[in-house]
Each structure stands twice: as C-alpha cells, then as structure tokens.
C-alpha cells in the first residue's frame, strides 16, 4: 500500500500505469513495460478490424441454429448496452439479454435495463441471487484473499467475485438453452488479452470448476457450490461441447462518448450515483476504495491504461479518471450496507 498521494505517484508517460501496479517496470523514457511491447495506437485500428472479421466468422457459423444465437451478459451499463445493440442491429443476432441483480443496481440503471431491451425488441431475463448470499460474498471478498493476483490487476476483489458468479450463470443458461455463444461487454484491460473470442471447452472448464468451487465454498459457504458450479448432469444433458465466449467491445474500437451517444438513441440515460467508473452498480466505489486501500492502485487503471494505449482515450482524461479515488469516509456508508466494517479492510 502506498502512502504517496494519488496525484504524485510515478506513471507511464504514454498510458498512465502507475509504479504501484504489480509487475510493471519503466524504461529510461518513462514508458511502462506494457507500452514498450504495444504497437503505436493507430495500428490498433487494423488489429481491431482483424478481430471483427474473426467474430463475424463465429456469428455466421452459429446464426439461426438455436432458440437464441447469443446470450448477452447485460448489466445495463454503457458497454453491455452498446454490445447488445450492436449484436442485435449490426450483426442481426437473436439475443437473450440476461442480468444478474446484485441488489445494488442504481435506479436509473434499472430503467435502462428495461428501455434498452424494449427498444431493441429483445427478450430479457433477470436473476436475483439471495441478497443475504450476495452481501456476504462482497463482504468476504473485501476482507479475504479470494482471487489470483493476475485477476486482481483487472478488477477489484468484489468485482471479480461478482463477475465469476455472473459468468457461471451465463454458462448454465447457455447449456440449458443450447445457446452456442455468450457475449460480455468487457473492454480492453478488464479481461486478459485475446478475450475477444475464446472457445470454452467444457471438459477443460470442469477441471478448473472443481478447484474453484472448493475455494468458493471455503470462502462463501455451501451455497457457493450452486452459484459458482455447474452440475455434471447439466453438462452431460447439453448437446454443446464448446461454448464461444466473445467480448466484442475489444474489436469495436469506440470511445466512451460515442457509446453513450449511440445508446442514448435507445433511451439509455447516465446514472448520477454510481461513481466515475460505473454506469450501473452502487457498490462500485466501495470496491475501488477497498482495492486502493489494500493494493495502492485504482483497480480500473489497467483498463483505463489500455484505452489510452489503443487510442480510445486521451491521457489527460485517463489521468483524471484514475486519480478520482472515492472518498473513504463516503464509502463507509456503502460498507455498512453489506455489513462490512471499513476498519476490517
């Protein structure tokens, strides 16, 4: 943890990654190790073009063969709204939008869920895990080492727990409904490189699942087995052996302003109570503050740095975002909502 004020931390001269970020080093020009290996920003247009073609091949191979072509993990936030819009309109895929209500979806975001799916004429499913489980999940995630170090460089511990639960739910639904593609609205830096298209082999997953479930049950109690697990019977019953996991945002190359402009045409409106890095979740600032207190860097810095590196955000805008650490006194209130004592963090 760093005692240096966030504005005075040494940062990469190209992408804003801080010296407090795990595994990073700087060259004589102040370029971080990730920027040293990255091509110049303009080249990403070509890279994204190639990625779009790869996605289009997958869409073409699966379009029209099942009840739904794709399950979209839909948070109601800007990125998954844009993903849903593009898959439905540009690519003509039959989408099923699925939202997990974690109990902390901002009011405006709940309206956005309805208005976006209604405008697009898309089926929409909402799943609400028991609040008692979710609150405990967040509390434990804030106070216990649950995730790999690498996962923590991409999102806060609380976010990672939630994301894993969501992903697992999507895979379950895909198996139940034989949907060959699952789409997420993740952007660069939130997921590992090459996540634009991953083929999930259900047998390979089984091996991770059993290890992961053991850990989840240890941390979150016996109910975690169903939230984070998939039964062998479900896998056996499904005709699917592989599921295509796609994160199309990595191939689209659109700026935040453009995203918001486009989804506004569907009736989507920005939330005013979710902090500077979220457009749906009221707990997000708590997750950031906990991460900052424990690790000394903003958990959004990796994705923000990646947006700069790939030419989708200016460095000045990025700097403003990463230096905006939520006020610890303010997040204490959020902490109490999940039964967390800030001093335990």
């Amino acid at each position: 943890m760093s005692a240096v004020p966030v504005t005075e931390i040494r940062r990469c001269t190209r992408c804003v990654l801080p010296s407090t970020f795990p595994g990073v080093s700087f060259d004589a020009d102040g370029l971080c190790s990730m920027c040293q290996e990255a091509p110049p920003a303009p080249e990403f247009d070509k890279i994204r073009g190639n990625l779009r073609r790869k996605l289009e091949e997958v869409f073409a191979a699966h379009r029209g063969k099942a009840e739904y072509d794709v399950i979209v993990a839909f948070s109601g936030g800007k990125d998954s709204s844009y993903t849903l819009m593009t898959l439905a309109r540009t690519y003509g895929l039959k989408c099923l939008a699925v939202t997990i209500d974690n109990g902390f979806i901002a009011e405006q975001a709940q309206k956005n869920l309805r208005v976006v799916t209604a405008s697009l004429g898309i089926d929409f499913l909402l799943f609400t895990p028991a609040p008692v489980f979710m609150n405990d999940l967040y509390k434990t995630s804030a106070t216990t080492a649950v995730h790999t170090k690498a996962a923590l460089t991409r999102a806060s511990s609380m976010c990672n727990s939630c994301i894993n639960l969501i992903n697992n739910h999507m895979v379950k639904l895909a198996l139940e409904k034989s949907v060959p593609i699952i789409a997420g609205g993740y952007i660069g830096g939130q997921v590992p490189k090459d996540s634009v298209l991953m083929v999930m082999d259900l047998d390979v997953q089984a091996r991770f699942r059993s290890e992961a479930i053991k850990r989840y049950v240890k941390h979150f109690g016996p109910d975690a087995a169903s939230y984070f697990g998939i039964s062998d019977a479900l896998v056996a019953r499904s005709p699917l052996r592989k599921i295509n996991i796609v994160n199309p945002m990595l191939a689209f190359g659109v700026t935040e302003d453009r995203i918001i402009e486009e989804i506004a045409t569907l009736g989507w409106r920005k939330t005013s109570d979710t902090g500077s890095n979220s457009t749906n979740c009221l707990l997000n600032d708590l997750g950031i503050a906990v991460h900052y207190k424990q690790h000394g860097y903003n958990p959004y810095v990796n994705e923000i740095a990646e947006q700069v590196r790939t030419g989708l955000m200016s460095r000045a805008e990025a700097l403003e975002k990463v230096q905006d650490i939520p006020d610890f006194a303010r997040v204490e209130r959020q902490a109490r909502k999940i039964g967390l004592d800030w001093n335990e963090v």
Partner: protein
Amino acid sequence: MDDKIRQYLAETLLIEFGDDGSGVSEDANLFESGLIDSFGFVQLVAFLEKTFAIEISDEEVLSDALSSFAKIRSFVADKVGR
C-alpha cells in the same frame, strides 16, 4: 526456455517461484493452489504454442502435463526436442 516460461508466469500471472518460502515451489500444482484460473490457463496454452512453435492437443490440455512449472518445463522441452 526456462527463463521465458518463468518470466511469462511472473509477468502475466504474477506467480513468483522460489524455494526459500518467499515464492511458489516449482512443483506446486498451479490449479489446486488457486494461482491460475481458467482465463490464465487459456492464456498460458496460447503463449506456449506461440512462443515455442508447438501444438498442444486437447488431450494434453486435459492431462496433468501443464499443472506445475516443473511439468510445463519438461513438457515443452520434450515437444521442442522432438
């Protein structure tokens, strides 16, 4: 080769090896210890295939051959030597 794999695991998965108690043992099972998740594993397989110009079959992916640093190292050495 040893260095390349070690550096990859350190930089990408943030796994540091060492037998003096400060790091992870080279024989430690990366899955059971929770050091690698499914994302990390997919990345690792892609890295090994690309870096060492080898092909890793579905059976090999499913086997125990890539479960620790020591096993990964001998697996790649075998493949490259072939």
